[in-house]
C-alpha cells in the first residue's frame, strides 16, 4: 500500500464541508505557516520537498517560486491552473470535486509564500458544477476566517476568485491562461518575458497546477524533508494518475512513485489489469501530448531495466525509446486498438485546439489530420508516412508555445514505434476498413529498434 497524502481523506463522508474537513485536520498547514513560518521559509520547505510541477512539464516548484520577481509596490499573483483539458487527464477534477478545501488550503499557504493577496483559480468551462463546489468552499473558508483581511490574526490578507474558461485547451498553457483571465483572446504570449516577471496584468505571477498547490499542504504539515523521503530520486512525494482505456479499473489513483509501470497496470490496487482478457498493446503514460510506447518499451526500458512510475524512469531513453510523466493521464490500449485511428483522433484534437497564431502549428496540425484520416480510411500512400514525419518535424520546436510540440510528438512516436501498422493500412486498404484495429502482433513484445 503506497502512501496517500492528497486523497487519503477524500472519501470521508461530507469532507466537502468545512466542518468535516477541519475536524479531519484541515487548515493546519495555514496555521503553521502563518504563525510560525516566514514566506521565505515556506518557499524553502517547498524547495526541500523536491516537489515538481504536476501540470505537465515537471518543473521544480520551489525553484519556480524563487524566480518570482518582487519589485516594490507591484502586486504579485498566484494563479491556479485548473484548466485540465488534456485528453486522458482528469485528476484535478477529482481532487477539486471531492476535497475542494485541500486546494483552498494549499492556495492560502502558497499565496502567503508568494505574497499574493488576490489569487485566482482558472477552471475549464466544462467543469461548471465544480465552480459551485469551489465557491462554496471559499465562502466557508472566508466565514471561518481563513480568507479575507488579517487571516487568523496574522496580518496576512488574501482573497481567492474562481474564473471559468470558455472551452479552449490552449487556455491551459500558462500565458494563454493569463490572457484569458485578463479577458482577452486566449493566445499564448511570446516569451520572454516570463510570467514570473510579467504575468497577470503585467505583474509577477506564478501559475501552478491544482495538484501542485494541493501538495503544498502535506509539505508544510510534515516538512519538506519528510516529503522528500517519499518516492524515488528526483520524483518525490505522491502523484495522482488518472488511468483510462482498456483496463479493468479506470479512475484516479494516488501513487507514491515507487512502483513499476507493470505493477500499476496489473495490480488490483490500481488498474487491475487489461479488461476482457486482452493483451496490452501500447500506452500513453502522461496525457495525450506525450509519446506513445509499445508494450515492451513500456514495461522495460531499452536498457532492459524495469520501468518505474517516476519522472526519470518514464523519460528514460528520451523520445527514442521513452516517454514522459506529463500530466499523469495514463491511457492504456489493448490489442484490439488501432494506433492509426488513435493517432488520427489525437491529431484531430490538436488541430481543433491550435490557437492559430503561428503558422507551423496552425497549418501543420490541419495537414497532419487530413493525411492521417486518409491513411485510416485506406486512401493513404506509402509516401504519406514520410510526409507526416516531415511535417511533425517542421512543427516541433518552431512554434510559440508547446502545443505545437504536443501535436507533433504523438504523431512522431506513433510512426516511430508502429510504422508497420501505418504501412499495413496503406497496403491493405480494404481490410483496414473491415476491422477497426491494426496489427495484433503488438500484443507480443516487439524488437526494440535502437
Amino acid at each position: 500500500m503506497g502512501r496517500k497524502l492528497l486523497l487519503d481523506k477524500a472519501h470521508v463522508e461530507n469532507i466537502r464541508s468545512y466542518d468535516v474537513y477541519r475536524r479531519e485536520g484541515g487548515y493546519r498547514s495555514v496555521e503553521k505557516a502563518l504563525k510560525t513560518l516566514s514566506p521565505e521559509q515556506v518557499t524553502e520547505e517547498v524547495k526541500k520537498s523536491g516537489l515538481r510541477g504536476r501540470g505537465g512539464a515537471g518543473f521544480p516548484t520551489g525553484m519556480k517560486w524563487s524566480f518570482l520577481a518582487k519589485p516594490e509596490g507591484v502586486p504579485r499573483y498566484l494563479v491556479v491552473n485548473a484548466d485540465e483539458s488534456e485528453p486522458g487527464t482528469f485528476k484535478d477534477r477529482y481532487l477539486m470535486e471531492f476535497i475542494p478545501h485541500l486546494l483552498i488550503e494549499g492556495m492560502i499557504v502558497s499565496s502567503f509564500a508568494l505574497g499574493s493577496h488576490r489569487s485566482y483559480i482558472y477552471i475549464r468551462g466544462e467543469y461548471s458544477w465544480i465552480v459551485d463546489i469551489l465557491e462554496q468552499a471559499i465562502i466557508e473558508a472566508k466565514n471561518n476566517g481563513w480568507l479575507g483581511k488579517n487571516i487568523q490574526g496574522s496580518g496576512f490578507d488574501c482573497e481567492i476568485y474562481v474564473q471559468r474558461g470558455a472551452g479552449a485547451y490552449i487556455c491551459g498553457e500558462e500565458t494563454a491562461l493569463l490572457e484569458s483571465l485578463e479577458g482577452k483572446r486566449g493566445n499564448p504570449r511570446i516569451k520572454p518575458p516570463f510570467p514570473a516577471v510579467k504575468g497577470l496584468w503585467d505583474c509577477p505571477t506564478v501559475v501552478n497546477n491544482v495538484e501542485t498547490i494541493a501538495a503544498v499542504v502535506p509539505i508544510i504539515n510534515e516538512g519538506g524533508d519528510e516529503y522528500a523521503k517519499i518516492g524515488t530520486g528526483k520524483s518525490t512525494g505522491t502523484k495522482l494518475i488518472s488511468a483510462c482505456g482498456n483496463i479493468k479499473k479506470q479512475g484516479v489513483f494516488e501513487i507514491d512513485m515507487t512502483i513499476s509501470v507493470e505493477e500499476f497496470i496489473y495490480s488490483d490496487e490500481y488498474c487491475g489489469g487489461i479488461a476482457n482478457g486482452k493483451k496490452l498493446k501500447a500506452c500513453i503514460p502522461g496525457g495525450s501530448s506525450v509519446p506513445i510506447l509499445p508494450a515492451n518499451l513500456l514495461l522495460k526500458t531499452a536498457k532492459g531495466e524495469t520501468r518505474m512510475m517516476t519522472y526519470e524512469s518514464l523519460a528514460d531513453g528520451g523520445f527514442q525509446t521513452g516517454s514522459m510523466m506529463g500530466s499523469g493521464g495514463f491511457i492504456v490500449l489493448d490489442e484490439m486498438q488501432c494506433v492509426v485511428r488513435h493517432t488520427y483522433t489525437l491529431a484531430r484534437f490538436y488541430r481543433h485546439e491550435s490557437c492559430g497564431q503561428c503558422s507551423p502549428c496552425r497549418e501543420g496540425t490541419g495537414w497532419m489530420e487530413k493525411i492521417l484520416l486518409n491513411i485510416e480510411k485506406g486512401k493513404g500512400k506509402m509516401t504519406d508516412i514520410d510526409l507526416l514525419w516531415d511535417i511533425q518535424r517542421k512543427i516541433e520546436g518552431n512554434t510559440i508555445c508547446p502545443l505545437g510540440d504536443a501535436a507533433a510528438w504523438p504523431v512522431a512516436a506513433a510512426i516511430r514505434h508502429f510504422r508497420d501498422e501505418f504501412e499495413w493500412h496503406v497496403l491493405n486498404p480494404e481490410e483496414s476498413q473491415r476491422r477497426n484495429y491494426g496489427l495484433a502482433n503488438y500484443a507480443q513484445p516487439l524488437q526494440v529498434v535502437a
Partner: protein
Amino acid sequence: MAEEKKLFKVTIDNITIDVAPGTSILNAARQIGGEVTPPAMCYYSKLQGSGGKCRTCLVEVAAGSTADPRPMPKLVASCRTNVMDGMVVKNITSERVLDARAGVVELLLINHPLDCPICDQAGECHLQDLSYEHGREGTRYEFTRRTFEKEDIGPYIQLHMTRCILCYRCTYVADQLTDTRVHGILDRGDHAEISTYISKAIANDFSGNMIDVCPVGALTDRTFRFKNRVWFTKPVDAHRDCPTCCGKVTIWNRGDEVLRVTARKDQWGEVQSYDGKPGWICNTCRFDKKNLSDWVIEGPMEVNRHSVISANHYVGAVKPQETITEVMGRPPKLLMDIHKISDVNKPEVDLSAIPGPPTSETYEGNPRAIGHNPTDEKANEQGIGTTK
C-alpha cells in the same frame, strides 16, 4: 555627463556589428542588410507588439553571449529575441534554419489560394517574394484548401480571408492608429478568420493603413480593385498639405490617372519613417485624392528593394547590398536552373525555329498544324533573336 552607452557586439552569419542593447536580432541583421536579414512576415517595426507569429524569421543562436556562450537549443524568432553581447547568430549559414524556413513557407502556402493572377497584391506581395526566395518548387499538399467568402468591410477595404496569413498586423493598426478596433480574429486554428462582427464597416481615419501593412492580398483597396497590375503603373512620390496626416505618399499612375495612393515604403516593405515617426497616411489622402492636381509631385519612387515593380522601367534603382558571397564563400545558388528544365530556354535552341501553334491561316481543322508568326519571320530575315 551621461556615460557613453555600451554597444553589444553580435555576429550574424560571420559578419560582426555593434548594436545598441535592446535591439532584436532581426533589426541587427537589418543594419547589415542583404541576404543575412531574415524574412519577416508578421513583424512590423512600427507596430508595437507585432511579430513572433509567422516563424519565417527563425534563426539559430550558436552562442548566447560572451558571458554564457551556450547555444540555444531551439531556433528562435529573430524579431522577438534581443541580442546579447557576444551573441553568434546563424541565418543563411545554418542548414537547420533553411530547412525550417522552407517548412514554414510550405505550411504558409498550403491553404493559400495561389490566386496571384487575379490578386491585386501580386507584384508587391511579401508572400510571393518569400516563397520565391525561401520556398520549395512544389507543394506536397493534396487536399482542398480552406476558403472563405470575400467580404467588403466598409466602403474602402475588401477582405479576402482566404489569402490571409494571420499575421495580426492589421489588428495592431486598428489598436494603435484608430480610435476603436472593430475587427479581430474569430475562431482559432486553421479555421481562424479576420472578421468584423456582423460585417461591421471599418471606417476610421487611419483604417486604410491596414492595406499597407497586410503582407498579402487579404486586405486590398476597393478603389483600386482590378484597375491595373502594379507593375504597369508608374509610382511617383508626392505630397500635399494634409491636416490629418503627414501627407507624404506614393501615387501610382497610369498616364494622367491616379489609380491609387499608398504610404511610402522603405526597403523592408514597411511604411517609411520621417524623423523617427512612421508616415501613416489618412483615408482622405488615400481614397479621396485621386487627381494629379491634388498632389505636388516629387519624382519617381525610389525602388530600393527587389520586386517586380523594380523590373519596371527604373534607372538608378538602388540594389540591396550583396553579402551572400562574403558570407557563404560562394556565389548565390539558383533556386532552379531553368535551362535544365525547359527546352524552350536552352540558350542553344533557336526559339524562332520552334513551331508555334497553328494560326488562323494554317489551322484548317488540324490542331497540330504548324503555325508561323509573321514577326518571327521578319526577325529571322533580319537575323534578330536567333543564335545562329
